[in-house]
């Protein structure tokens, strides 16, 4: 048995496998299939200060090897989460990461203040449109990445803050550094890539929102490259995700520089994906004489060109 436990910003995780935000709700449904206390952590559905109804349907489409989604942050609001789900989720024994979103800097500060000290970590979804800058996402430009991080951190004084980077940007390295400068304790990446899928009979996009976020197996090489580049650029820990389907995929991310990984779309393809990945990690480590999974992080050796 390899030691799979990892520590991120002082928070101890049983193993480095975390459920990705938006694919796992608050964990209740998957707990009907297996004990979610056995997974490293759960990043909750993106929470906002007020409840949100989200986008019209259809909200999802499939393209070979990937999916597209535009749920539009439907969620019951942070108060409802604190009142109805938080204690239950904590009691499962998994690490609770509250994924949060907002339309203004005040929203981000407010929601972080509300969750500060109540959850193990806060993950900032900065791929949301910024109302003040004409709807451009906070996560696009390094300046706004740094600003939103700083403001959020002023709300999350006692809770490690993870900034989740968008891949739809000019430079992932600049944005990773900007998050670090803004006071992020950790970064996670990648959020979804913006895409479109068309129903050619109707000559219309399949998703009601027209565009959707692309995720799943097919995005993995892009995600691995970005995790590598970002982890080279910052000193804070990195959580990697994007297309992880099996233990071998997770190991790629660890070697590229991640301390832990998140699994999203794979939960749809196989609801037992995460327990299988955890078991696979252990087996791989045992077979390769790796005593602690932390030994894998950042061990990638580039080819000499």
């Amino acid at each position: 048995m390899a030691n799979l436990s990892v520590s991120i910003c002082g928070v101890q995780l049983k193993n480095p496998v975390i459920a990705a935000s938006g694919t796992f709700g608050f964990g209740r449904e998957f707990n009907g299939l297996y004990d979610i206390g056995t997974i490293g952590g759960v990043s909750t559905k993106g929470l906002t200060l007020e409840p949100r109804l989200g986008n019209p349907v259809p909200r999802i489409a499939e393209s070979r090897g990937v999916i597209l989604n535009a749920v539009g942050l439907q969620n019951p609001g942070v108060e409802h989460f604190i009142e109805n789900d938080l204690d239950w989720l904590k009691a499962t024994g998994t690490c609770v990461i509250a994924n949060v979103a907002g339309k203004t800097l005040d929203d981000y500060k407010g929601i972080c203040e509300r969750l500060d000290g109540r959850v193990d970590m806060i993950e900032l979804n900065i791929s949301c449109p910024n109302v003040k800058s004409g709807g451009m996402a906070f996560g696009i430009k390094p300046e706004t990445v740094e600003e939103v991080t700083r403001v959020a951190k002023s709300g999350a004084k006692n809770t490690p803050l993870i900034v989740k980077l968008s891949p739809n940007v000019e430079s992932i390295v600049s944005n990773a550094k900007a998050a670090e400068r803004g006071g992020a304790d950790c970064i996670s990446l990648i959020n979804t890539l913006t895409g479109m899928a068309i129903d050619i009979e109707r000559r219309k996009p399949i998703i009601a929102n027209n565009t959707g976020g692309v995720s799943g197996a097919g995005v993995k090489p892009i995600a691995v490259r970005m995790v590598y580049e970002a982890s080279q650029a910052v000193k804070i820990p990195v959580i990697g995700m994007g297309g992880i389907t099996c233990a071998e995929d997770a190991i790629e991310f660890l070697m590229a520089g991640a301390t832990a990984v998140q699994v999203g779309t794979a939960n749809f393809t196989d609801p037992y994906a995460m327990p299988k990945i955890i078991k696979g990690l252990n087996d791989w480590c045992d077979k390769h004489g790796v005593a602690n999974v932390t030994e894998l992080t950042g061990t990638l050796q580039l080819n000499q060109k």
Partner: protein
Amino acid sequence: MKDYIATIVKNEQIAENIHAVTFALDEDVKVRCGQFGDIAVGGTHLLRRPIAICKAEGREITFCYQIKGEGTQKLKTMGAGTRLNVLMPLGNGFYVEKNEKKVALVGGGVGVFPLVSVLREYGASKEVSAYIGYRNKNAVCGVEEFEKATKFVGVTDDGSYGERMNAVQAFAKDLEAGNRPDVVLACGPTPMLRALKALVEKEGLNCYVSLEERMGCGIGACLVCVCDLTNGKKARVCKDGPVFKADEVTL
């Protein structure tokens, strides 16, 4: 609910563009009529396909599916012995109360298949009338099942089988003739359900409809598959449905 490893025993065409696949499981599964399974077709298809459970007999489960896109196209080619993952049973299903003696089934398109499961569950204990609409005579299927109902009215859009009308019109006609059910259970395309909803509201009938929506997780976690409720809230088709009280959903 469980992710079963299911082995295909039979997979054959039953009508134009419609196939029936029967799986053998290694244990019994208890299914309520109107529930569905989420079938993993594998390969580059990351999403499962939600299909109503048409028949469940001990360890054998049958789904009837229309060939629509790549996933069902792929499923069609799979022969006996192929093993697939099927997450089931999912959703709430149809439920008929003790005091509801007369049941009307109104179905069209792929919506006829969950109604077969209702008939199998309640056919012996209730007086069931089935009003089933098909596109044309080549699409007609499940008749051997529906004929076991107290009354079966099969109709087509073009009149090539039964009368030329849709399922809601067939039901309305019988209603006018005095055959009034205690409860109406329906499944089919949204325009059909919309017309039925208007009719049952006018007639003051108790009605349940089974909805279709594109899904992610299939178990209630991702909020991909929502529908609008008349109270302004959203509900998950996969978990809170797929069966809803007609006067509680906006169609």
